[in-house]
């Protein structure tokens, strides 16, 4: 039942599909599908236009809680590795081959497991490049605290925390990310954020290895009704990256996901307050003191 929080999903329906994957509204077009075959909205530039960093781009069918397709962009990998937060021990870490359409991945077990961490890795003699993302299958399962705590490769960007179910990264919000090298927090490390709309910002990790980034308020004005891309424009992709030289190798790690419009763009606090005041006014007659002959009950 922890996976079934309709309320918040509906309040922000259409925003950030990845974190709504538990919700049957569908995981379609998730983690920011970058190419048309994977659901790129009309009018959007292909992924290569907004970043040169490696990306993992997912797509799940509406209501699909068992399978998803992960496309690898900007990186050559024969397989992607899927780490699960719970489920059978032998299924907690599974490699899936990457085909022409991407890697077809599955939840850790049928109707079990929500949070999954996905990694693709490319290694040469002097360079290691890693792409990573999170996928929410929408099944009942454990929180990702332990999943995120376990090191999965050398240089990592780890959300601290991930948005919980039915939430997402959103414009103008601050979120924290941990940078680790060989499982240890990396202080003074620069993290770069790039968004689909062209924003770019940097943050430096503190002594505990945490970098705090503010998501830019860079969504374009809401499209008119009937615009093919109007729904999709409520969310966009971003990628964080960091690089480090260590042990004679150059490490580059990227974490990509999606972020949503500030919901207040489509809300009116003025109207909200107006109806609150209307309720107050409607209740005012109750404050009129009853006259003695109006039937005070009294008691013995």
């Amino acid at each position, binding site marked *: *039942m*922890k*996976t*079934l*929080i*309709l*309320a*918040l999903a*509906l*309040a922000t*329906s259409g925003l950030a599909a990845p974190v709504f994957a538990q*919700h*049957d509204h569908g995981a379609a077009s998730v983690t920011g599908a970058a190419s048309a075959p994977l659901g790129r909205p009309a009018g959007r530039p292909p992924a290569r236009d907004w970043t040169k960093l490696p990306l993992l781009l997912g797509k799940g069918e509406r*209501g699909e809680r068992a399978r998803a397709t992960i496309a690898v962009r900007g990186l050559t990998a024969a397989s992607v590795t899927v780490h699960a937060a719970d489920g059978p021990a032998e299924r907690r870490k599974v490699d899936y081959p990457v085909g022409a359409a991407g890697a077809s991945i599955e939840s850790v077990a049928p109707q079990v497991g*929500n949070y999954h961490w996905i990694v693709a890795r490319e290694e040469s003699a002097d360079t290691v490049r890693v792409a990573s993302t999170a996928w929410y299958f929408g099944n009942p*399962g*454990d*929180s*990702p*605290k332990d999943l995120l705590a376990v090191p999965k490769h050398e240089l990592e960007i780890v959300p601290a*925390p*991930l948005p*919980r*179910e*039915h*939430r997402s990264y959103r414009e103008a919000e601050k979120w924290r990310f941990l940078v680790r090298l060989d499982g240890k927090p990396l202080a003074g490390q620069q993290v770069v954020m790039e968004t689909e709309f062209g924003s770019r910002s940097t943050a430096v990790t503190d002594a505990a290895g945490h970098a705090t980034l503010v998501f830019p308020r860079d969504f374009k004005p*809401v499209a008119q009704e009937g615009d093919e891309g109007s729904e999709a424009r409520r969310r966009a992709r971003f990628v964080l990256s960091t690089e480090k030289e260590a042990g004679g190798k150059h490490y580059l790690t990227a974490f990509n996901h999606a972020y949503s419009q500030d*919901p*207040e763009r*489509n*809300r*009116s*606090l003025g*109207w*909200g*307050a107006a*109806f*609150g*005041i*209307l*309720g*107050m*006014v*409607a*209740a*005012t007659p*109750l*404050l*009129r*003191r*009853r006259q003695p002959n*109006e*039937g*005070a*009950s009294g*008691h*013995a």
Partner: protein
Amino acid sequence: MLKTLFPTLSRFRFAVQVLMLFVTVYGSIVVGHYAADKITGALPALSCAYDQMNGGYCVLVPTQHQVHHRIGQAMVQAQQVTFQMVLPLLLTFLTFFAFFFVIGKAFCGWVCPLGTLQEWIGKIGRRFGIGLRRFEKGDLGEVKRVRPVKWLLLLGLVFLLPLLTGLGVTPHALGNPFCDICPSRVATTLLTGNTEELALRIGDDWKFGLGAVANTLIGFMLVGGLALRLPFCRICPLLAFNSVFQRLSPLRLAKPTRDNCGSCRICTEACPMDIPEISTHSGRKAYNEDCTLCGRCAEYCPQDGVIKLKWGPFALFSSSREYYKAKVKGELPDGTVKPLKFVKNAAKPAAGAADA
């Protein structure tokens, strides 16, 4: 020690309500950020899922969701009504009942954050001498006329509309209509400093309309609650939901038949839900569908052992004349409190005397 800290049942309940308000509104500080960390997703209290800091979720949230997405959509897909289809809903109800079994409808009177806030608003009204209004003949009309509303909201907004939405009959925006009109959504998110839920959705007429109802209700609650005790509880579908199961929890209000009862009506005066049956009936009928197990009727019953809060065979609290006499010295049954008086400390010596 406990007797000093909690001299009355009301004081103990107040402490529990403060603790539960923290748990239901800010509980993620303790239990964790993710939904999987929450105490439960099927709490018998209006602990709102829109509140990003809460400690658990109200049972009506998954109920609407599952009726909408599991049952409604599965029926659309022409599947048979199978056990697997309704299993999530059954699991939600079982989880709900695991909690409900322990303290039953006391979730309304002791745990619900919206109930706590309404009570505190009422205390402000009493403190400032705002006349109490009641659902009774001669004032707002008989309380029985209001009771069906909560059942209509439960059936219509928690079950029927989500089902129709799942079937594709009603718009998607009506998938969780109770949450959209629930004042707890607005109140608890405001308590975390978030105005997002107070703001109305623009561009979706259904969402705008439902949100307008919620805001009107909370505005009404804020002002009306000064004069009328627990205004929203009277129409709360969660109270109706809990009432369905109230006989299945060992915690209950017990009032056996007594010859010396039925005339003073002090228990009804004390009841924040204006339940007349607690004074006019005994046995099962005295434990009414509107009861929130707050225990005020037992506190203000001037007869020994007439009204009890019982958990199974154990009497947790029993009315007594001595308790009543002490209680009314500080607060009358209708909640009226003695005015605060600021007096000079008699023990403090006068300045001149000190100088001497």
